């Protein structure tokens, strides 16, 4: 069987975008999109965990009894999250400080369990890995976009680079309400474009 990676990528970023279309994993989306850099860090961690967990769950899909599949999935996911957590703490301390509690919380990120349940548990290993990668990329791109928007709207900066620095920061955008407002506006924009097309 062959996998068309380009099509899969399109699926992960556009048609089945985890944040904007499936609307899963809202907790990290809202909490870690305070800046483009934090969002990117979170996204990359999710790619790592999602790819590994999809791979292992797909490999073991015939071994895991249906009755205990959720606890089994969670054990796998929690293991990889802890591994990522320890590795980031040891090797990328600044990122660890910025993301704080949200790395351990990847365990309960619905995207990971959602892909395990909806895809990896039913498909062979290679497609599952690809699914993990493309979904992770879709998540990362969306999250980074939100992070960049919030960073720009609050301080006029993106990735810490001053594009048009404001004299007075619009703090609302880096606080929780700013996350909801930005996400709402982006979702509205997507619906707007979609309605126009159809």
């Amino acid at each position: 069987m062959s996998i068309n990676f380009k099509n899969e990528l399109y699926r992960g970023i556009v048609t089945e975008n985890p944040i904007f279309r499936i609307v899963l994993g809202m907790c990290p989306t809202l909490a870690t999109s305070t800046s483009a850099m934090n969002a990117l860090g979170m996204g990359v961690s999710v790619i790592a965990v999602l790819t590994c967990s999809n791979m292992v769950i797909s490999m073991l899909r015939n071994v895991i009894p249906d009755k205990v599949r959720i606890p089994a999935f969670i054990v796998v996911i929690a293991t990889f999250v802890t591994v990522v957590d320890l590795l980031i703490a040891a090797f990328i301390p600044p990122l660890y400080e910025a993301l704080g509690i949200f790395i351990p919380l990847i365990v309960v990120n619905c995207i990971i369990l959602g892909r395990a349940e909806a895809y990896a548990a039913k498909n062979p290993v290679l497609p599952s890995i690809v699914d993990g990668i493309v979904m992770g990329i879709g998540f990362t791109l969306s999250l980074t976009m939100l992070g960049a928007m919030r960073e720009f709207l609050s301080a006029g900066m993106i990735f810490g680079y001053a594009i048009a620095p404001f004299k007075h920061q619009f703090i609302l955008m880096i606080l929780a309400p700013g996350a909801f407002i930005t996400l709402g506006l982006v979702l509205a924009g997507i619906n707007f474009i979609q309605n126009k097309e159809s």
Partner: protein
Amino acid sequence: METKDKKWIVGQGSHIYFPQDTSKIMFQVILALLPASAMAVYVFGFDALKVLLIGVISAVAVEALIQKYLMKTPVTIGDYSAALTGLLLALNLPASSPWWMVCIGSLISIGIGKLAYGGLGQNPFNPALVGRVALLIGFPALMTDWSVTGGYLSELYRKIPAEALTTATPLGFIKAYSGSNFTADLVAYFNSYSINLKTLFIGATSGSIGEVSELALLLGALYLIYKKVLNWEIPAAFIGTVGIIAMAAYYVKPQAMLLPHYHLFSGGLFLGALFMATDMVTSPFTFRGRIVFGIGCGVLTMLIRLYGGYPEGVSFAILLMNIFVPIIDIYIKPKRFGV
């Protein structure tokens, strides 16, 4: 209202429908706010006039632009509702607000607070308050900058060296010192200070543009209540609740509490209770529902003022109670005839 292509409108009562009334009502409310606006210009000088004009113009412009180019629906600035939102927003800002902040406020009020929900009549929250709260959270330093450059207040400050009045509102001042060992001294200072009831009522205290003169606000509101544009239940319940709680708090702990008249007349209570909480779209239908709504606003306001992080709680209280309006309307229904 889009009624052209629909034969019947099915919806919650009441079913008496006068399309020409919206603009008339809005215009009357604007008219009723003129005394307070005039008083604001007198107290704060040219700065206040500037903020008021920018507020109205930017709100109307935002509504027109979004409706024309983004939503591609008929432009409804002729119903004066955008102008009213802009005016109310401006009345809720300090006189020192920079022009761009007023414009951002209008954009949020009209764009997010009103049009994103589908326009007039669909918005769950009072649009002007959405704008004000967004600015308050977004620009806390600018939104608590009570400096004045002109008008009656600057004259007054020259005469009485009252540091307390130039740097913060009395409520803000007490909040800034809460939990410290200075609260008692400060409370004593304010409670014995010569800003008496009359001064507060007529309007010589620092604060947002529109909240300085309760007298002017009351005049406008009475006109509207007389014209049956405003209901009296919400303001009465709201202000009454705040008064009762403030009095109770004062008598329980007089050494740590401001006199009740500060709670009644020195914050945004009258502006909020008379002109924001009574917004027809975002308040309950029934008499009893409005009483519940007003009491809820009063309790939340005092909770925030006495225990919250912000010195003033009127806008948060009204927004929070706005959320409860659908529930209030479900559980408190008008009595059916003949039951």
